[in-house]
């Protein structure tokens, strides 16, 4: 479904990604792992078109993404929960949810306000509050909910559980799990290694802008040595 082929990219004069290869099949949950600053978010920015790549290619369902503008990429059905949330501060919760709502996956049971509010009752309480009046965790919920509202075919979660209370984290993981079972493809970056490796099908390990290992998630879960070496745990 998604294939990154020898992607090079960077900011200003420095190159951050030095030839990344990542693949994700329809219905798969894939995770990118690596220490801070290794290029996970940069990879994601390249996929969604927020950062132009310098060479290589990115394909989604056979369509080359690297020349498309972000909005076109999103319309192909990629939903993003960005690092640092980026909820719209001047829009209310409801508006944040509706602003881009769509059904790109042509789902029969698309996400709508009702379902979202059932999922995050906390947001339902805050419906009329502006984005910048929410607590950090509430913003995080909103960012996830907002991405769901476009009913993406591929959902990208970049540190989606950052700042969430354990209880909510659990709920989020359950949602991810549910989505997975419904056949949703997911690309996920998170620091909750333990849970992550249980949900993900496959992993990619990144180090200094390169992929230094990949395989089935189960395998990494048991490979303490690899974890220590590349993740410091």
């Amino acid at each position, binding site marked *: 479904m998604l294939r990154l082929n020898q992607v090079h990219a960077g900011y200003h004069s420095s190159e951050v990604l030095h030839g990344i290869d990542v693949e994700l099949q329809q219905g798969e949950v894939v995770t990118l792992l690596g220490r801070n600053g290794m290029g996970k978010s940069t990879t994601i920015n390249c996929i*969604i*078109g*927020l950062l132009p790549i310098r060479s290589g290619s990115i394909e989604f369902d056979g369509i080359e993404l690297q020349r498309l*503008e*972000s*909005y076109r*990429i*999103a*319309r192909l059905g990629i*939903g*993003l929960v*960005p690092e640092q949330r*980026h909820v*719209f*501060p*001047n*829009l209310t919760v409801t*508006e*944040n949810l*509706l*602003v*881009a709502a*769509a059904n*790109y996956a042509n789902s029969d049971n698309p996400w709508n306000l009702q379902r979202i509010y059932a999922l995050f009752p906390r947001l339902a309480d805050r419906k009329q509050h502006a984005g910048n009046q929410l607590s950090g965790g509430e913003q995080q919920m909103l960012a996830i909910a*907002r*991405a769901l509202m*476009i009913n993406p075919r591929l959902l990208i979660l970049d540190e989606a559980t950052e700042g969430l209370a354990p209880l909510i984290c659990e709920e989020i993981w359950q949602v991810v799990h549910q989505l997975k079972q419904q056949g949703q493809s997911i690309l996920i970056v998170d620091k909750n290694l333990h849970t992550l490796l249980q949900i993900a099908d496959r992993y990619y390990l990144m180090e200094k802008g390169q992929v230094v290992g990949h395989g089935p998630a189960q395998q990494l879960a048991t490979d303490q040595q690899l974890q220590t070496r590349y993740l410091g745990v």
Partner: protein
Amino acid sequence: MLLFIEQVLNGLQLGFMLFLLSAGLTLVFGVMNLINLAHGSFYMVGAYVAATVMLATGSFTLALLLALLSAALCGLLVEIIVLRHLYQRDHLDQVLATFGLILFFNETTRMIWGRQPLFMDVPEAFAGSVEILPGVPYPLYRLLIIGIGLLVAGGLYLLISHTRLGMRIRAGASNRSMVAALGVNIRWLYSLVFALGALLAGFAGVMAAPVFAVESGMGESILILTFVVIVIGGIGSVKGALLGALLVGLVDTLGRAFLPDLLQWLFATPTANSIAASLASMAIYLLMAVILAFKPRGLFPA
């Protein structure tokens, strides 16, 4: 007393005129968060085109249509050629670029229409006056401006606060790339909205043309005033802009109308006249300073 009521009315009317001018700016500056000094230029384009067409054909409807069209077109071109590159930039870069646009537009109108002011008459249908208070005839055209001001305010409010388009514009103002990453063609959207802003400015120009002088540079002095209005009201809010406009209109009018008489209690007539005149000139700036001193984000911050 009658005079006082009449002056209050005048103040409100000036307020509506100012609002009409501010409407487009509310959209472009308040909501899209783009500092466009050339906004006054679209106002000027609207007025010039309307005056020219009216002079040539005598039809107000045609003049209005063509003026709106050309203002919007100018806006679209300006957005595509210049401003599109500057959304991500510092506000100040926008200031410099749009300052350049002002120079360009002013000189271009001068080259096309010459240096002298143009004439535009009040459309036949609204030429007369109505007696709104006993003994006080009020120009029908000014009533029309009030009506249109209200309509535009309502329309703009609905557009910004209650449509998806409005949400997207606001979202884009705070984080452009995130809106794009959610599948919205923000670039095209902003071009359109900018054109709409220009159209509103042009509309204000058409409405102002029969009342004010149509001349090159007419947009600049007005521009400052409209910025004042929006800032007093609170940036990004239509309600704020409307109230700000009415407040400015009232303060300005009442200041001009009654300060000289008030000051005569304190000073001899010539001094009073002179002081009153300078105070009246400063009134709206005083108003703005006072409001911002106590409410640093304006009356109704969005």
